[in-house]
């Protein structure tokens, strides 16, 4: 009702004006009829009516929403103020945009990775099944990103569980789309038949995998493809259903396409194709996961029955644990492993937000970054508060006049806050754009060829709420205090003084000094943090890993679909290695089963006959060809490398590293000693004679503590794997080299699937998290330092301006320019050192949060903090030097005349 009136008030006012004129005309007629002259009649009519404008105003007010009206007024006034100070407006908007944008971006990623519900039907009913944490879990062959269960376990779980109305399992895998030559990999999922039905996904085209498709021995019933794959690989062809895809050389028909919003249950990932679990034996061949009780490759999620809680489900699955594990003990487990295995317990965990490896890797960094960006925003707020305070003192008289002529204090505060609000609004709008760019940059940053990140970054209510809350908080933070202060003036006092005293009043100034101290302190914390991350990254990249990373090319070979027997495989690898070594440009080459620094590992228990020990000994293994150490340039210290005599007919040989000697042989010479692997029932015994000793090198990760490693000869392995990696050292560019290597592989078998990646790239990809932290924290650290410097510059300049007359008097009384310079610089130094001291304390006490992310230095590293302190001190002193110089150049006469 009143809103309608509000919009009609202009029309109504016109109506009223005509009505009043009509009244006056009638009254004038009346007066005229009484005999007055026309002029007198008109006047009398006016008098009779009273104040025409007042009447209109009263009706206008009745029609307006008083609050909206005054807010609108305030905003228009604020816009005028901003137009008058474009410099202030620009600085404020940009710093707010960066602050709010950075916070929003980081929150957006946290939201996407951690908080968002899966875009499926009733996600809150989804529960993941796992084996409860225990220190003996688990041993075997782990082959995907979430190897929670073996196929045998899954069958038992499905048979015994009662908590879920339906339950599905899935595993991930990669499939080669090309027939020969360089591999083109598709990211695939193995899913059980009720996967899509449980998640409530409906097909975009065709149909999805159903329970009827997933029966043992199904061969290849068909594949479901994702929306992006449909768009990318098939160009969005609407007749895609029924077309055939070559997956690892098997022709598979496309059954259907999933909708664009569906990316599976793993947050941060998308898939290209989905195959039913029953097709796995066909693709896996003799190494099929389905048929091996030691192959862990499935994860399971169920939908709770109505009325069931997660706790009740957890209790139920725990109670079926004996039934699941008693019946599925792997045949080749040793007695002790089998005992531990039978004691495993199942548990249930909420899965409404899906599962994610990103979550474990990036949760701490993202929270840390959110803290960092929060501090940046706080510094920006302090800066703006400072600028606003400075402006407030300029507008002191304006405020005093307004108060004196009867403006309420609340009204003035509201008006000043609308200026802050306007700034925040502009900053937030720009900030959303900054956030968009930044979060996309971060996702692109973390995406590698091996590991494509897929995150849904569309804004949701949580993100909008966060941004709004941050913006409002920001606005209050930098607007409220200055507004309160500005309106606290006693009008009489301000009006009486000429507007400026001889010296600046201390009281108002101290808040601004405090703000600068705070800014310096916080930016020191951020600067120190960024230096920590940068130095940690430097430690990692310059670390001596025990091998030379440059000039090494990794050539991955997959022959799993070529159906070679174990004997043939060994011969093929040997042949391939010789062809590669003969390729022009190749200096040295060797094969390796566990690529160093790739995150893969292979460990096992062993014993050294003749040396008694209570515990089982655990060592890491690698299977290599002769020439491996020469290729990676790890020096052999004693004994010999493998050679052509180490065949399956000869005694198995082993080479160990120094750490192995130190840990298990008390640094005695290992040559001639024997190593025996502990084996389960039915496994052939493995004994190795140590023939060589090499220098330590990193095995799995750059960050690891050096591990004891046993190298065995690839040529002596009874059953070589279905794929192998060659390390090739060359001084040529990898581009030209890979063409030659491709030809070499074609000579061995033209159907071989090949992948190339520079060794260095792979190592760098493993440092993405460190690089992200170093890059972003430096950016924010230097942004913070710049903001604090601007703040200090502002306060010192302001102080110089306020004390201009005082400085004039001092100089008139004989103070030299250097005296004045020192006076101002002293002021700056006091603020700076107070800030630096507080900042150092804060940095030392808050460093703990970053501890787990750092490599090779403590969060309280004194050198880092010293570097941050001196960097900030230099920049800040430089910034205050200019106002000091201005003060020293004051002409005393000019300064005094102004008074």
């Amino acid at each position: 009702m009143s809103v309608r009136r509000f919009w009609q008030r202009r029309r109504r006012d016109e109506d009223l004006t005509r009505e009043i004129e009509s009244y006056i005309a009638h009254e004038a007629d009346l007066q005229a009829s009484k005999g007055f002259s026309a002029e007198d009649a008109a006047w009398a009519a006016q008098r009779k009516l009273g104040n025409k404008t007042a009447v209109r105003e009263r009706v206008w007010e009745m029609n307006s929403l008083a609050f909206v009206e005054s807010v609108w007024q305030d905003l228009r006034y604020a816009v005028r103020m901003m137009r008058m100070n474009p410099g202030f407006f620009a600085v404020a908007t940009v710093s707010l945009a960066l602050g709010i944008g950075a916070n929003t971006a980081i929150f957006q990623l946290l939201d996407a990775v951690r908080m968002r519900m899966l875009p499926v039907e009733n996600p809150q009913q989804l529960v993941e099944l796992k084996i409860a944490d225990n220190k003996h879990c688990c041993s075997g062959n782990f082959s995907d990103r979430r190897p929670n269960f073996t196929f045998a376990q899954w069958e038992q779980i499905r048979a015994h569980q009662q908590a879920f109305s339906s339950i599905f399992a899935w595993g991930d895998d990669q499939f080669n789309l090309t027939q020969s030559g360089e591999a083109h990999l598709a990211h695939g999922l193995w899913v059980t038949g009720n996967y899509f039905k449980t998640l409530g996904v409906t097909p975009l085209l065709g149909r999805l995998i159903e329970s009827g498709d997933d029966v043992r021995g199904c061969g290849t019933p068909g594949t479901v493809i994702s929306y992006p794959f449909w768009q990318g690989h098939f160009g969005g062809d609407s007749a895609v259903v029924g077309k055939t895809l070559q997956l690892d050389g098997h022709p598979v028909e496309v059954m259907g396409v999933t909708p664009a919003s569906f990316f599976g249950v793993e947050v941060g990932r998308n898939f290209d194709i989905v195959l039913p679990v029953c097709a796995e034996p066909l693709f896996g061949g003799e190494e099929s996961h389905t048929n091996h009780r030691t192959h862990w490759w499935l994860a399971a999620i169920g939908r709770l029955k109505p009325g069931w809680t997660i706790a009740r489900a957890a209790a139920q699955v725990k109670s079926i644990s004996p039934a699941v594990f008693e019946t599925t003990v792997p045949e080749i487990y040793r007695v002790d492993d089998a005992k531990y295995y039978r004691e495993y317990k199942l548990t249930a965990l909420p899965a409404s937000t899906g599962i994610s490896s990103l979550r474990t890797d990036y949760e701490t960094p993202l929270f840390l970054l959110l803290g960092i960006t929060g501090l940046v925003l706080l510094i920006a707020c302090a800066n703006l508060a400072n600028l606003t305070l400075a402006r407030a003192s300029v507008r002191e008289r304006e405020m005093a006049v307004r108060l004196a002529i009867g403006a309420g204090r609340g009204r003035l505060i509201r008006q000043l806050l609308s200026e802050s609000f306007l700034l925040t609004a502009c900053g937030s709008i720009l900030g959303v754009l900054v956030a968009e760019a930044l979060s996309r940059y971060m996702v692109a940053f973390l995406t590698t060829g091996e590991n494509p990140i897929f995150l849904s970054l569309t804004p949701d209510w949580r993100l909008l709420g966060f941004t709004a809350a941050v913006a409002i908080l920001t606005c209050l933070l930098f607007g409220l205090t200055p507004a309160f202060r500005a309106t606290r003036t006693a009008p009489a006092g301000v009006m009486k003084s000429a507007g400026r005293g001889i010296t600046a009043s201390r009281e108002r100034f101290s808040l601004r000094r405090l703000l600068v101290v705070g800014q310096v302190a916080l930016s020191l914390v951020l600067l120190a943090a960024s230096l920590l991350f940068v130095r940690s990254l430097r430690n990692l990249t310059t670390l001596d890993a025990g091998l030379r990373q440059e000039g090494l090319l990794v050539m991955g070979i997959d022959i799993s679909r070529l159906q070679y027997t174990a004997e043939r495989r060994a011969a093929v690898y040997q042949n391939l290695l010789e062809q590669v070594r003969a390729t022009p440009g190749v200096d040295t080459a060797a094969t390796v089963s566990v690529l160093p620094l790739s995150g893969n590992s292979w460990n096992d228990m062993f014993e050294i006959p003749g040396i008694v020990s209570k515990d089982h000994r655990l060592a890491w293994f690698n299977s290599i060809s002769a020439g491996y150490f020469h290729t990676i340039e790890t020096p052999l210290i004693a004994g010999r490398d493998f050679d052509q005599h180490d065949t399956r007919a000869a005694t198995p040989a082993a080479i160990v590293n120094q750490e192995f000697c130190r840990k298990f042989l008390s640094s005695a010479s290992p040559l001639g000693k024997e190593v025996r692997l502990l084996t389960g029932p039915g496994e052939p015994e493995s004994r190795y004679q140590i023939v060589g000793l090499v220098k330590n090198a990193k095995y799995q990760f750059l960050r690891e503590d050096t591990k004891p490693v046993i190298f065995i000869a690839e040529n002596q392995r009874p059953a070589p794997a279905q794929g192998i990696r060659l390390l090739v050292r060359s001084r040529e560019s990898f581009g030209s080299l890979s063409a030659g290597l491709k030809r070499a592989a074609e000579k061995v078998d033209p159907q071989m699937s090949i992948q190339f990646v520079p060794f260095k790239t792979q190592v760098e990809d493993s440092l993405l998290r460190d690089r992200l932290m170093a890059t972003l924290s430096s950016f924010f650290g230097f942004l913070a330092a710049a903001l604090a410097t601007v703040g200090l510059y502002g306060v010192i300049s302001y102080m110089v301006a306020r004390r201009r007359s005082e400085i004039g008097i001092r100089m008139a009384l004989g103070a030299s320019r250097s005296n004045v310079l020192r006076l101002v610089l002293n002021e700056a130094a006091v603020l700076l050192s107070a800030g630096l001291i507080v900042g150092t304390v804060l940095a030392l006490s808050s460093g703990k949060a970053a501890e787990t992310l750092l490599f090779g230095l403590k969060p309280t590293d004194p050198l880092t903090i010293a570097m941050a302190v001196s960097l900030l001190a230099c920049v800040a002193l430089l910034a205050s030097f200019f106002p000091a110089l201005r003060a020293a150049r004051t002409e005393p006469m000019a300064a005094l005349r102004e008074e």
Partner: protein
Amino acid sequence: MGRRKASSEGGEMLQGTLDMLILRTVALAPAHGHTIAHAIEQTSDEVLQVEHGSLYPALHRLEDRGLIASFWGTSENNRRAKYYRITPAGKKHLASERSRWNDLVLAVARVLGPAVE
């Protein structure tokens, strides 16, 4: 920038009295502002002096409450004028106000009692 309080509408007259007088006036026949002002002045024997301008906010308010409706017409002087007429809701309101007023008068009379000389 203070705002006038809305309760001052109706000048010095008792709250709601002006509304009642307007409603009674237009209840007889549709009338325009000038007529209403003079009618109130005359029927109240010029006891209730109204500044004629203050009539308009009151008219505006009554129209907003749906108690009266307006239309532009031609007056007896052959001039354009905005006429007001009472609505059914206005009639009902007038009736209840009238009885309320009567009750009030009775109550006040009872309190004051017969005049004591």
